[in-house]
């Protein structure tokens, strides 16, 4: 009798209306940033044909931070981004997104869906599509084949696109082909595409390359305004630009972190002066 009761109790438990069955809970876990750190990179090593692109690299990024990465060519900036976004497998080390997500266990598409967006060094947009469609494709929504086939644009999505368009200042060219945009506009569009995806973490590779001073200024404004709501990591060569946006700067050298701190601290750091700013200082 007892067991029957037990069984009935279990059945009732299963049928309870206020709980969701475990297998129905969406697989996609939200990133846990309870410790206020969104990115943990520890002891990363990557080598290509004997060349060590990353060498025991350790880096922690706070949630909502705007971090600048600087370093000479070959210091490992792009490789670092490749590792975070799953493009390159590292030889050893660990990379965690928040407390709970092991980035090394996911591929590019999954990592993107987890909320890490990346802007390439060379602006990459879908040139055969209009600006509007570029943003539509970037929206945070189901990315499966079937979903794409049946997808219809909802009102709120349309609003979101309009919002992003106004942020990046491309409202007037919404129906223009992305391929016909100027270089700077493409950079913005790409940033806009990242925004449309509402990522937690934004990786921005050389956002102002090839921009006029005016455009660069607008970009700086844009990136600063993003920080807080999103975490932003910027890789940039342009020191003026870095100075204008940076709160914390990390200097990479030969695949590992050389120095970290505010722009001033970094610029006065002896190691940095020696290896990186050597000639300039």
């Amino acid at each position: 009798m007892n067991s029957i009761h037990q069984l009935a109790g279990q059945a009732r438990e299963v049928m309870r209306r206020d709980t969701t069955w475990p297998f129905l809970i969406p697989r996609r876990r939200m990133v846990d940033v309870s410790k206020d750190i969104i990115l943990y990179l520890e002891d990363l090593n990557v080598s290509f044909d004997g060349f060590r692109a990353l060498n025991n690299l350790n880096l922690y990024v706070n949630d909502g931070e705007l971090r600048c990465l600087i370093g000479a060519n070959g210091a490992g900036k792009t490789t670092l981004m490749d590792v975070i976004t799953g493009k390159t497998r590292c030889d050893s080390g660990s990379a965690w997104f928040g407390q709970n997500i092991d980035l090394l266990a996911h591929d590019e598409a999954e990592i993107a869906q987890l909320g890490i967006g990346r802007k390439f060094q060379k602006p990459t947009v879908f040139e055969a599509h209009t600006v509007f469609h570029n943003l539509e494709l970037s929206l945070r929504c189901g990315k499966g084949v079937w979903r794409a086939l049946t997808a219809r644009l909802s009102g709120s999505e349309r609003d979101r696109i309009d919002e992003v368009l106004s942020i990046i200042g491309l409202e007037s060219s919404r129906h223009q082909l992305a391929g016909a945009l100027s270089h700077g506009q493409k950079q913005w569009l790409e940033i806009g595409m990242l925004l449309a995806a509402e990522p937690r973490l934004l990786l921005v590779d050389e956002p102002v390359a090839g921009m006029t001073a005016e455009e660069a200024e607008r970009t700086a404004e844009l990136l600063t305004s993003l920080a807080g709501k999103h975490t932003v990591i910027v890789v940039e060569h342009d020191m003026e630009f870095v100075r204008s946006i940076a709160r914390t700067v990390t200097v990479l050298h030969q695949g590992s972190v050389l120095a970290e701190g505010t722009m001033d601290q970094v610029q006065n750091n002896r190691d940095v002066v020696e290896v990186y700013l050597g000639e300039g200082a």
Partner: protein
Amino acid sequence: MNTLSALRSFGQWFAEFRQPGRGSSWLVGILLLVTLTMSAANLLLPADSPLYVSTYTITLMGKYLCFAMLAMAVDIIWGYCGILSLGHGAFFALGGYGMGMYLMRQIGDRGVYGNADLPDFMVFLNWQELPWFWFGMDQFWFAVLMALLVPGLLAFGFGWLAFRSRVTGVYLSIMTQALTYALMLAFFRNEMGFGGNNGLTDFKDILGFDLQADGTRVALLLATTLLLVLAFLSSRAIVQSRLGRVIVAVRDAEARARFLGYRTEHYKVWLFVYSALIAAVAGMLYVPQVGIINPGEFSPLNSIEVVVWVAVGGRGTLYGAIVGALLVNYAKTRFTALMPDAWLFALGALFVIVTVYLPRGLAGIFERFAVGMRREKHGEKSWRENSGQLSAGEVSA
């Protein structure tokens, strides 16, 4: 000057034709109208009437339309997704073999040896029993299922392996070519049980209708047209949906799409399978109309020719592939009759000229005219906007 003005008015008509949605429906209309008229003219008019359309023309048209469908299949993956398959003939031929096996079984005991259990070529080579893969092929539904399933699975398996390990571009093209070449060698083998070099032939009837009757031929032509139209409409629906936009995005910037969270390999695999299925349907329709299927259909040369039809018509436009296939094949029929030796020169030159000078094919030429027309009509707009609209057309049907 006369031709030029004629061309202009054609361009004007074409400008309207080109508008997404409406223009494509024109194509559907023309296709249906032409085939219906031809069918009626074949069945209803007496043979000596000047408007009579001969059965020869009917089967010829049927064949062209099958090729058009195949070209469309290639265009979907090449024009829209940038996957250049040099092995689509394989899917076409597999579909054809599926139908061929059904037709072969339909012969029953009317073969030359009067053997109800085995097709003639097996009796002939002393086979004792039907190989396992022939079982069930006497049922139409099963044969059709197989004719879709086998190429579909092959495409899925191949695509899954290739796209997952990111084999792209040229490598993929060479792999597809090797695939169809391997299949060709395999089907040439008599041990395979598909009739070797002779393939499958001497079909009698389909679903109980005599294949040699005019009525059946017309029905087959109509079925081909209908399925082509269906395939066209569904393909158009796909390329105009968000799925279509993702596909084009994959073509132009695959890495970007992947970093936006799209599993690009899934998109490629499913599109590849879809395209293979259309090719298989084309093959299934082709076999009863031409009356033979043999391993020659697997030859890499055939698959490359299909790519040329698409290139000539204009890739990235569904109607372009269809028009290209029809035009090139008509030219082939004419040319090989007039001067057989010159055909290969002409075909070769066509390849070179189209790839070097007309990267967007005939569709590109017509569109240039169409834009000119529109500009005359609506006054000058900025160049950028015009070209913007023009290329936008590239991704719609």
